[in-house]
């Protein structure tokens, strides 16, 4: 140990000091000065600043936050600890769950079909740049509008019910899957495509012999993920757009019957369904991937 000190002592510091950089206070600087570190710092500061501005500018309408928080905790205790059905039957809830599941499934199937063809037009390695950019911007716009608003817009045109819900959910799914699928397609090794092109294969031959086989496992993974999202969205749509299913029952239990216990029961059913779906899709993904 003493030897280390002696060895270090023999190193000429003045030789080293020309590499040392000083801070403004005259101390030796230790941090690397990189663009990314500066950008990171700036981002963090901006986020914190916006948060502060947010809290200062919100209109709290003189709510007694402490009291409200206290009663929320009380309510949450009732909701989660004493779930009980009194307005719906178990069979009715099960049926509603199937309706929501069906809404999710239908919009995923439509979304996957549309998404696939959209992705063929969007993926840079198999499409032309102009078409790709048009599809890209179109899809970005559709994704930027919340699903619930699409459903409400379609409700006016198609009437209240499952048609508006499915078409509205499909809009968002298709846009999401176009992006996901096209990114999977773009990751394909271009050699496979080139080889087929060189052998004189037609467009659809290339798609089904090279593109689909090499990206299908990613595509399936994305599709399952989207199914989970669509299921959750179908609940939300049921609640906020009256499109039926378990979401509507949730909404009615809370905002019409004011029954925390009813709400609690349905919440547990929904959470169990979401968890089961997640487990199922993880299993399928593991098998496919």
């Amino acid at each position, binding site marked *: 140990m003493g030897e280390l000190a002696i060895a270090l002592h023999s190193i000429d510091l003045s030789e080293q000091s020309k590499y040392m950089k000083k801070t403004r206070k005259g101390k030796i600087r230790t941090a690397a000065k990189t663009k*990314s570190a500066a*950008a*990171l710092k700036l*981002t*963090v500061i901006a*986020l*914190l600043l*916006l948060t502060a501005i*947010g809290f200062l500018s*919100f209109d*709290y*309408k003189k*709510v007694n*936050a402490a009291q*409200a928080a206290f009663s*929320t905790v009380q*309510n949450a205790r009732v909701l989660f600890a004493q779930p009980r059905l009194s307005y719906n039957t178990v069979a009715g809830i099960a049926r509603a769950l199937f*309706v929501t599941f*069906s*809404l999710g499934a*239908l919009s995923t*199937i439509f979304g996957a079909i549309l998404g696939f063809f959209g992705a063929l037009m969007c993926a840079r390695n198999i499409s032309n740049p102009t078409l790709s950019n048009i599809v890209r911007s179109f899809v*970005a716009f559709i994704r*930027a509008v*919340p*699903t*619930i*608003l699409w459903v*409400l817009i*379609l409700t*006016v*045109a*198609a009437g209240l019910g499952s*048609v508006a*819900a*499915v*078409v509205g959910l499909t809009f968002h799914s298709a846009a999401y899957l176009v992006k996901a699928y096209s990114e999977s397609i773009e990751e394909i090794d271009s050699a*496979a495509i080139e080889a*087929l092109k060189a052998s004189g294969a037609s467009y659809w031959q290339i798609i089904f*012999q090279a593109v689909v*086989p090499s990206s299908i*496992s990613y595509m*399936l993974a994305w599709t399952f993920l989207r199914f989970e999202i669509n299921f*959750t969205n179908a609940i*939300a749509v049921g609640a*906020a757009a009256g499109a039926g299913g378990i*979401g509507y029952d*949730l*909404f009615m239990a*809370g*905002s019409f019957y*004011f029954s925390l216990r009813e*709400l609690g029961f349905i*919440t547990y059913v*929904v*959470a169990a369904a*979401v*968890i089961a779906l997640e487990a199922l899709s993880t299993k399928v993904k593991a*098998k*496919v991937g």
Partner: protein
Amino acid sequence: MNNYTKQAPKPVGQTSIFTIRKRSFALVFAFVATLFALSSAVANFSTAKGLESIPKAIIWMAANFVPDEKAISRLPNILSKLAETALLAVAVTVCSALCAFFFSLLGTKTTKINPWISRAVRAFASFFRNVPNIVWAILLMFSFGQNILTGFFALFFASFGMLVRMFIETIDEVSSSCVEALHATGATFLQTVFQGIIPSSLPNIISWVLYMVEYNIRDSALIGLLTATGIGNLFDLYYKRLDYASASLVVICIAVMVISIEIASNKIRKVIM
């Protein structure tokens, strides 16, 4: 299934693989078709009506869903609600990220505090993630009423659950090796966090936060509809008054903001990673 998905194209002559591929394709197709038929029956959905509705919707949107002068005059009001929504989304995300970070430290394998605490934290986060945010919104409505705090907490709980999971994964992936080294030097828990975990995982964490901001802006429209607050409520107001021109302006404004945030986030991600 595996043969179908994993194989690269094979030259002609290896018929067996084609047969397997065809067979599994037929199987998948049959499954999807059945699912489709059953779902259509259960949800009372008609594909014909669905297809019909799209041109109808497009014609209707082209005629009615376009901002007019009256709508433009409402722009200041819309923009102020939009700004409020954006600030809410940022504030919710930042607060939930701060909480989620401390919780995720208890949940990672990397910091290995205690396997039981880790399991408890993961279960806790899973609970918040799997209870739909509309349930939180309805629950909070009982006590907070039509208040911005209703939206704040509803979004907060859902974001918290998501972020804890993302942060745990990120930290275990990015920081575990340097944390081991810092442990070996005799660094304390907090030193390891501030000198190892934060510097190594912060870019990924910020990337998740930016993603969550985007997500929360879109979700706040939904929560706003349910709790009669923010931009969601404004849309609902115009929509119910059949003032579709103004409603369309709300949609356009949301889209423009989400897209701008997405572009900005992507730029930031590229620099900080």
